[in-house]
């Protein structure tokens, strides 16, 4: 089945079996292994990507359903010379330990700030509830997201 979609701004296509999930297509057919497979049933959030402006579990979304969509993955967060502010703060705060939850966590955080640039701490927690970090580094992760939104606010106020 030929699937054409736009990934990180680029038009991409691949011929995949119909049962292929978007996650598998990204990792194995489009050479974008940044998005991870964790639980494979929508619980852990490591496979989170943004499809047409909303975050989804790419392990549950069949590639066929993503046909023609606009997809953003972790590989599309930074550009070649600057980190996304979330990546910057995650690094400074030591928010990622083993790092496996990172790509999904960052995409969920991006999805939140895209829709709500000034979230409360409760809203940050709610937005990240679908992303598990087994190293339990949640405090640093939440602090980093809150700090990015603070910076964004300061910038827009200035």
């Amino acid at each position, binding site marked *: *089945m030929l699937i054409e979609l736009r990934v990180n701004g680029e038009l991409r296509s691949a011929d995949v*079996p*119909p*049962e292929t*999930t978007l996650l598998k297509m990204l990792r194995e057919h489009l050479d974008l292994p940044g998005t991870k497979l964790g639980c*494979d*049933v*929508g*619980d852990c*959030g490591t496979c*989170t990507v943004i499809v047409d402006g*909303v*975050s*989804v*579990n790419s392990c*549950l*979304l*069949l590639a*066929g*359903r993503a046909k023609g969509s606009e997809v953003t993955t972790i590989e599309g967060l930074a550009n070649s010379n600057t980190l996304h502010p979330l990546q910057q703060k995650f690094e400074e705060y030591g928010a990622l330990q083993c790092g496996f939850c990172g790509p999904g966590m960052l995409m*969920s955080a991006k*999805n*939140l700030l895209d829709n709500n640039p000034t979230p409360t701490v409760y809203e940050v927690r*709610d*937005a990240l*509830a*679908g*992303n598990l970090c087994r190293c339990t580094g949640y405090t640093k992760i939440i602090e980093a997201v809150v700090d990015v939104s603070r910076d964004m606010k300061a910038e827009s106020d200035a």
Partner: protein
Amino acid sequence: MKSLDYIAPNSAEAAVALLSENGESACPLAGGTDLVVDLKHAPGDIELLVDVSRIDEFRGIEETEDGLRIGSMVTYGEIMSNPICLEKTPAIVDASHTIGAVQTRNLGTIGGNLVTCVPSADSAPALMVLDAEVTVAGLDGKRRMPIEDFFVGPRKTSLEPYELLVDIWIPKKNLGKPSDFYKFGLRKGQALALVNAAAAIDIKKGKIIDPRIALGAVAPTPIRALKAEALLANEKPTPELIVEASEIAVTECKPIDDFRASLKYRQQLVRTLTRRVLTRSVEIASNR
């Protein structure tokens, strides 16, 4: 996952035709948050997925002469950001917010939740207390039924073979009716309900009118607490009455006793949750 075929028809007729042509081996696909998980573990005989999520007739939220129409393929994320729902059916918004987490809510649809028909389905109680009806389409055209008639048993609905859920209707008179939803799970995020509850009431001249209580995860399907409702009707909404109604609600449930929670604990949850949703609905009604 095993080899499957996938097709995305763009009308209800085309989808029904595809299902009837392929019989047992075909199955409708919506957000996939129930179905794809099942397919990964126990694929069964399914060979063809008929993606109904893009059918226009199944999508969208709109207010009409009749009331509020919510397409079966509307996601929880869409409900939570819809101005009409936010204003007129906050209990449905609250219920949507308790489902899974952001990513699941952006994929999962309200129709998929009703068709999967587990006793703990979180969208059911809020729809039931607002007297929702559902439209289904099949080989013989469409039919409409009260939502309670849709639920038959655990994972069993009254859908006939090849029938599809089209949309959900909330009658006009119930838009803005004071209502509340509360879910209790073992965690705040990503947890199924041990018990969920919704209530809706009107208060006229100091008396309760049209009380509704619905409870989930306490019986083979989501249920209405009819005896508790009867106790409340045409009475003054006092805290004592609400406590009494909550006590009656407990007797109307048959929760299971398992490793997630004991029977006694679930009964206590019914008591507490019923009291909470009733109290909150009364508060909203009184503040009008």
